[in-house]
């Protein structure tokens, strides 16, 4: 089971957890397993065509999966996935 770190804006959709685990052999399988467990996450991560939304980055360890094999990137149990949506919270 790979670890998935959940950013603050998505936490309400996963019961407030900061980190969850999900199984799968690829990034796509792991994220789909996550979306299966927490249905609200599905539209937050995926566009209608099944690809990742452009405003969400997913990193396998420290590397953007888009520069790896995208959703087909292989994942092992020791890997950690980081979901990173754009944040603009600032100074006011």
């Amino acid at each position: 089971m790979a670890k998935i770190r959940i950013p603050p804006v998505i936490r309400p959709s996963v019961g407030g957890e900061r980190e969850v685990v999900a199984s799968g052999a690829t990034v796509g399988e792991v994220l789909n397993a996550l979306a299966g467990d927490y249905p609200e996450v599905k539209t937050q991560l995926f566009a209608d065509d099944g690809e990742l939304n452009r405003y969400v980055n997913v990193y396998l360890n420290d590397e953007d999966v888009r520069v790896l094999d995208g959703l087909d990137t292989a994942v092992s149990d020791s890997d950690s996935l980081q979901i990173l949506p754009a944040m603009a919270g600032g100074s006011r």
Partner: protein
Amino acid sequence: MTPSGAEFIKQVKHEIDEIDPSDVHDLLNNGVVIVDVREGDEWDQGHIPGAKHVTRGHLESRIEGAAPDRDQRVILYCASGNRSALAAKTLKDDLGYEHVESMTGGYTLWKDRGYEVDVPKRLTAEQRERYSRHFLLNEVGQDGQNKLLDAKVLLLGAGGLGSPIALYLAAAGVGTLGLVDDDVVDLSNLQRQVIHTTAGIGTPKVDSAEEAIHDLNPDVKVNKYQTRLNASNIMEIIEGYDIIVDGVDNFPTRYLLNDASVRLKIPVVSAAILGFEGQISVFAPYEGPCYRCLFPEPPPAELAPSCGANGVLGVLPGTVGLLQATEVIKLIVGAGDPLIGRLLMYDALDASTTTLKIRRDPDCPICSRDPDSISDDEMGVFPDYEAFCAAAG
């Protein structure tokens, strides 16, 4: 019979290697460490460009800051070649430096030959005292302090992130600080916006911040812009600044700033905070990725907490803002490895940091192009985000 001082120096010169200034001149910018062992006042009158300053009195205790490896080539010089010969003997015999030379004729001969010199800007006695802890760092030193004093840094916002950044950059002696903020100080700001005071409630933030900056360091010139950045004023405001510090609270301004800063090739030290977490990166146009390479599109309103008021731990903008201020100083003095092409995430509850790689997008709509080809009409353009925010209430 013990030798005279002059005889001793002559003897030492036989025991060490000497090098002519013309050979040293050929080695400038060649990775060879050149160390000036004269006193501070002599160094201030002028020195060889790129040389490190370690006085002979501090040689043993500070040489490792200038030349950490015993096997690297080190050339020492003084005014005429005597003190550097004695210092070379110490490095060779007592500290084990394998490749050390003393420049014959010293700085006097170097100047007589007409080679280039660096004459540092003269600092006042008060400035020397104020910045004395910077002078003790090889990575900053007097050269770095002069760079800080000459630097112009623009802060977008004099709020949570802007407060600690402005205070510490002012303390560090950044010569010009621009402040862009249209807001006035509110009681609810004071939980985190430490540059403002209870007495300042109701006054414009740029005025309140200017007063605090001048109280801390009168060396700093403050340029105030009591406005919000928009497409019509951004180019005029940011042009001429060396670095921009971004912590703005909304996506439209972030994209606008990105596009304008790429056009003008100004690096942006960027951060965002929410709750207990922060993200920091440095977007250096054409050197690393830009904000659009990282996030080509803003998220929809339900995933964009910037639309409304959100909780933030009061100390968090302090921590994150000072990471930004540190990156600013590193960029100015040229020290270390800046956060270009990397995103640092800080989680206060975990007390953990994570660093992610960010890469330039070869198809980036902005930074894959020639900066002159980016038009006014394109800047900050993306699907209508303000409508999203309005819809979200």
